[in-house]
């Protein structure tokens, strides 16, 4: 893309092309390229070749799971009923997706409009994370076609999983609505966007409720297995708090991570507003993440003290636990604090990546690695399970990139003048933009149509 833009390609960022004619859907889908140009840029991208290799092996095996059954595709273990699909796919993707509700809350409830340039990315990150957690779940369920059963056929209301199912389903629709504003802009349906903007507050508040509950509920699922989860990863009273609190820095750091990657690999797709504000916003997010991590480490230690589990630290499991909490939480906390104070962005971002790693490791530890610590054997996932997990993750990346390339997530959709007043009046009063100097400067720099 970079080369094509150098050669004079205009990036699709408004309903009209350079000559003033309305862009067709096809034109928007192909990023304003001709089909052959589009294929050319796709072939030039080395990531596509890696993805193609993963799909070449992964997709047939993923399909094979539905043809030959779970025993063929996974370990099919009775002792480890939840393997990689849930241990990684569900339990790790969901906390990394808490970004949606956090940035939604910050911007819409607390009025932190300075964070708006990244709000949509955070919302999208949340939506996709949840959506693919459900995809992993569908791959794992014995009878995925019965997924709606807890909603319509048979209710088990005392079960934590019942709550998770309902809340994830509801929250997914909330997130679809939240992200749909970007889609309505892109597709050219301002009425839909206005409709969603009107219920934004309601959506955001229900997002907070649902997130608090099901992030916690995922932890509470493990309180059913007090004898199986290792005591260092288990706390009857605080399990849901541990999961909920660690999801907060997890989601924020995921947004830092994704925005870092996006700023590096798709600079052409970002606008001046995003580029100018990214460092400042990253610092804000990192501050939030630091508070989250500090709280998490504290309640984790309180959890250990509450049940007096210190002696477990002096064991192989204890060392593994300390590796997780030091490399995944304490070191990133130090790095990000240092980075924020000295404005060394590379260090902040390194800390964010390590936090993401720490949260994922924590979930995988709880669900798989230290699960059944009393049993003599450990479960090593068979290769097909690994390949399917990788393939679903690769689909996640492709979908993520597909949307970022097109929808106004990292940039602002420019509107024709006669449409502008209507939409602008609803969501961004001019007075506010004037009072926030940085975005205005960048916005007026790059808008030529206005």
């Amino acid at each position, binding site marked *: 893309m970079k080369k094509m833009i150098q050669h004079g390609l205009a990036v699709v960022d408004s309903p009209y092309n350079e000559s003033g004619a309305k862009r067709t859907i096809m034109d928007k889908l192909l990023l304003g390229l001709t089909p052959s140009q589009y294929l050319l840029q796709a072939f030039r991208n080395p990531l596509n070749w890696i993805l193609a290799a993963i799909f070449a092996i992964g997709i047939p095996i993923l399909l094979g799971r539905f*043809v030959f*059954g779970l*025993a063929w595709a*996974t370990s099919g273990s*009775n002792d480890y*009923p939840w393997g990689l699909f849930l241990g990684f796919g569900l339990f790790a993707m969901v906390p990394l997706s808490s970004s949606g509700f*956090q940035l939604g*809350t*910050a911007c819409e*409830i*607390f*009025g*932190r409009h*300075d964070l708006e340039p990244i709000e949509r990315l955070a919302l999208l990150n949340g939506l996709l994370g949840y959506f693919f957690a459900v995809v992993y779940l569908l791959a794992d369920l*014995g*009878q995925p076609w*019965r997924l709606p*059963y*807890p909603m319509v*056929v*048979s*209710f*088990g*209301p*005392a*079960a*934590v*999983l019942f*709550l998770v*199912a*309902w809340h994830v389903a509801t929250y997914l629709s909330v997130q679809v609505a939240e992200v749909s504003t970007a889609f309505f802009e892109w597709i050219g349906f301002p009425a839909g966007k206005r409709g969603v903007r009107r219920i934004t*507050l*309601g959506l955001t*508040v*229900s997002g907070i409720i*649902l997130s*608090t*509950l099901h992030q*916690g*509920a995922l932890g*509470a*699922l493990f*309180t*059913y*297995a*007090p*004898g199986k989860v290792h005591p260092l990863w288990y706390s*009857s*009273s605080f*399990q*849901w708090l541990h999961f909920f609190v660690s999801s*907060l820095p997890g989601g924020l750091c995921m947004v830092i991570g994704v925005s870092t990657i996006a700023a590096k690999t798709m600079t052409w797709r970002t606008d001046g507003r995003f580029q100018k504000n990214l460092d400042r916003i990253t*610092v*804000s*997010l990192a*501050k*939030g993440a630091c*508070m*989250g991590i500090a709280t998490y480490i504290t309640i984790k230690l309180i959890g250990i003290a509450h049940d007096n589990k210190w002696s477990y630290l002096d064991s192989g499991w204890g060392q593994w636990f300390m590796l997780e909490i030091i490399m995944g939480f304490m070191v990133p906390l130090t790095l990000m604090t240092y980075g924020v104070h000295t404005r060394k962005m590379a260090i902040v971002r390194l800390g964010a990546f390590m936090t993401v790693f720490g949260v994922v490791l924590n979930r995988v530890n709880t669900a798989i690695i230290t699960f059944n610590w009393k049993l003599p054997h450990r479960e090593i996932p068979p290769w097909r399970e690994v390949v399917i997990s990788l393939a679903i993750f690769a689909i996640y990346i492709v979908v993520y990139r597909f949307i970022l390339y097109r929808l106004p997530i990292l940039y602002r959709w420019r509107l024709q003048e006669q449409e502008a007043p209507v939409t602008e009046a609803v969501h961004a009063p001019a007075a506010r933009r004037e*009072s926030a100097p940085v975005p205005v400067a960048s916005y007026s720099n790059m808008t030529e149509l206005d």
Partner: protein
Amino acid sequence: MKRRNFLKACLIGGTTIALGKTNKGWAAGSFEGYPEAMGVLVDTTRCIGCRSCEAACNKEQNLPEPDTSFNDNSVFQEDRRPTAKAYTVVNAYQKNQPGGPVYRKVQCNHCNEPACLTSCFVNAYTKTKEGAVIYNPDVCVGCRNCMIACPFNVPGYDYESVTNPVVKKCILCYDTRLKVGKPPACVEICPQEALTFGHRADLIKVAHERIRANPERYVDHVYGEKELGGTSWLYLAPTDFDKIGFDTTLGNDPIISNVKDFLGMVPMVLSIWPALFSGIHLLSKHDAEGHGHDTENTEEDR
């Protein structure tokens, strides 16, 4: 305009509560089992490891042919667990000890307050008044949460099946026998009378009577009388239970008591959060005109 938003938020919150009212905590006090519940007392000092109970179970429940015949004693070399193809297995312990080996029959213990039942989000499990924990395979989605929850590692999953995999486990022969008052197939076939079928309350008395009459033969404990709120299957043993494969660290509270902390918090969040956050929004709205937030001293909020 904003008041309308607030009302809307309340409405949405209220709807969520209405939806969520089914998420009620399992707030009842401890449940000690149905008074007429049946059970089985296993006297491990009598078991000779003939595996005829395994064979009888296989036949009664129409399970697939086992990998090796029920006369094959090499299976005692490993520690087996119940699976979708074998609802009960017999394991040998203390093989090289003077008093050994000690055999232990493993199957669903039919808890008074089953963890599988409380963890199931489609309510597939039922604890019948006869004491059996049965399940409805027609609604099983295959999340396998019950297998995570079961403290005894009992439910097995039918991973081999492509179109209709479900959780499978011992149902105390509920459909074919227990319902009509007959003992389970394994009890009926046992040549050593190691298994005794009867009312759970009576079996507890029988067990303690045996310990009293033969104190040198048994350790003074009936496994399953109190463990995890009590189970329908009760065990007597000649030696410490943890030496013959029992988990003695499970405590006497049913599994669900670990989850109550969280379940009790749910309605609070559902009812407090909408007002709390809408309120904060209204408060922070006030300075929206003149907000010149300095990023240096504002914190990321959550």
